[in-house]
């Protein structure tokens, strides 16, 4: 994938080895795609004795151009679990785990024929009912038993341990950066002082945002890009979605939308109103972005130290600063309501 001009031949040979029942394999087109910041993406149209298929290749960039380090083998194992559970995400078919065939570690999966959600929304597509569909998409993979997820995924011992670790990640991220970050230290203190009611831990997507959603012809969301998946609090995906949607509309989880979303999610999962409501979503809006923020700051720090030269790392500092401008007023607004919810939870216990 590092040398696109060689890929039709290399991919053809790879597929012929992987799929011996395919005869006369020929890659009729190979196009580099945009859309992902962190991985190389390409679309290939492949003809063989049984017909024509459109495939997507998703591979690691060269070492000096890696913005975010993630594990292709884990992604491959996870997507196969998702496929087995019928989660709406493209089917993964093949994996070059060493890069010896495709030039870099890469997954080969179906090209989705669904419509990218952001362009759909930008062109005026109807958003009616999509809050419910969003809840269904999240609930679908949140329901996968943790025991069935890839063994290499870290399993926190408890919700408390997990959330404490996430809050500490704010402090560790601040400590590791090339300059002091008092806003991150404030947010860590605030998150610690306003913990919501626990829920069972689940699979988390980790980058659940509109840019990773497609709309199928029958109006369901298909989910892309599982490279940041982990096991954690399912509300982090909701908060993260809202955080990004505020920067890149539409925000399906605006005031009215979030109520609809939460109601449908509670209906599907059996969680209660103290656990899943617009306020806890907003709490996780803040908590849930730290994983991405840490990676973005690591890129910026590497640029400052001269160990990477990627302008994307500089650009991403704008995202962090935009985050600051969202988290601080959110903390002001949510603190008193989270205190009320905690009191209600104590009363009902």
């Amino acid at each position, binding site marked *: 994938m590092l040398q696109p001009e060689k890929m039709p031949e290399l991919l053809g040979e790879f597929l012929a080895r992987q799929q011996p029942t395919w005869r006369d394999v020929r890659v009729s087109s190979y196009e580099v795609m945009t859309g992902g910041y962190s991985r190389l993406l390409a679309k290939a149209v492949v003809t063989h004795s049984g017909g024509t298929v459109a495939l997507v290749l998703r591979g690691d960039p060269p070492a000096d151009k890696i913005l975010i380090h993630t594990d292709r083998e884990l992604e491959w194992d996870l997507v196969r679990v998702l496929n087995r559970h019928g989660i709406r995400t493209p089917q993964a078919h093949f994996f070059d785990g060493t890069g010896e065939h495709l030039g870099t570690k890469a997954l080969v999966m179906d090209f989705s024929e669904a419509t990218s959600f952001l362009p759909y929304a930008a062109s005026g597509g109807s958003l009616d009912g999509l809050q419910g569909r969003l809840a269904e998409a999240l609930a679908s993979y949140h329901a996968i038993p943790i025991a069935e997820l890839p063994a290499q995924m870290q399993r926190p011992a408890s919700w408390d341990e997990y959330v404490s670790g996430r809050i500490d990640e704010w402090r560790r991220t601040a400590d590791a950066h090339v300059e*002091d970050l008092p806003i991150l230290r*404030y947010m860590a203190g605030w998150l610690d002082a306003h913990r919501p009611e626990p829920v069972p831990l689940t699979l988390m997507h980790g980058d659940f945002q509109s840019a990773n959603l497609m709309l199928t012809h029958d109006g369901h969301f298909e989910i892309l890009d599982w490279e940041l998946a982990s096991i954690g609090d399912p509300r982090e995906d909701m908060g993260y979605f809202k955080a990004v949607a505020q920067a*890149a509309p539409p925000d399906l989880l605006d005031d009215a939308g979030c109520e609809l979303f939460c109601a449908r999610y509670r209906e599907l999962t059996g969680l209660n109103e103290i656990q899943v409501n617009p306020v806890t979503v907003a709490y996780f809006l803040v908590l849930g972005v730290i994983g991405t923020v840490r990676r973005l700051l690591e890129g910026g720090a590497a640029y400052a130290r001269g160990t990477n030269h990627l*302008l994307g790392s500089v650009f991403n500092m704008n995202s962090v600063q935009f985050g600051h401008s969202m988290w601080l007023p959110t903390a002001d607004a949510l603190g008193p309501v989270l205190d009320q919810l905690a009191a209600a939870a104590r009363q009902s216990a």
Partner: protein
Amino acid sequence: MLTRPTTEQVLVGIATELRDTIAPLVSDGPATVLLGQIDQILRGLAVRAAHEIAWMHEEADSIAAVTGTDVGWPASLHLDDVVAWYDSVSRVLSGALDEAFAAGDAARVAELKQLLDARSATEMRIVGGFELVGRG
């Protein structure tokens, strides 16, 4: 030395040429995304070039006043020295925040948070109209 056009003016000029003259000629997707990012970076740099040394000093004055700390002065007005000093001033603020949270002192936390709100407002003056170029 010649100081005009200012750094701010030149950087805005480069960004404008890239956006209006170069970008329309580029059809390659990743290159278009990169140009969009460069546009935002250059416009932010223009604002920083014009104001950042003054803004760091103004914020340090506020932090010194609220925390009751003598934050000193940078070794010089060269940017590296100012940035190193600003980092030490930020550490004063972070330390005060940690202490206030550890003591459960909500009033003190609220007082210190006003400094963070001011810092964030400055950041957004630099960032300007933020757009996630290239996503989706």
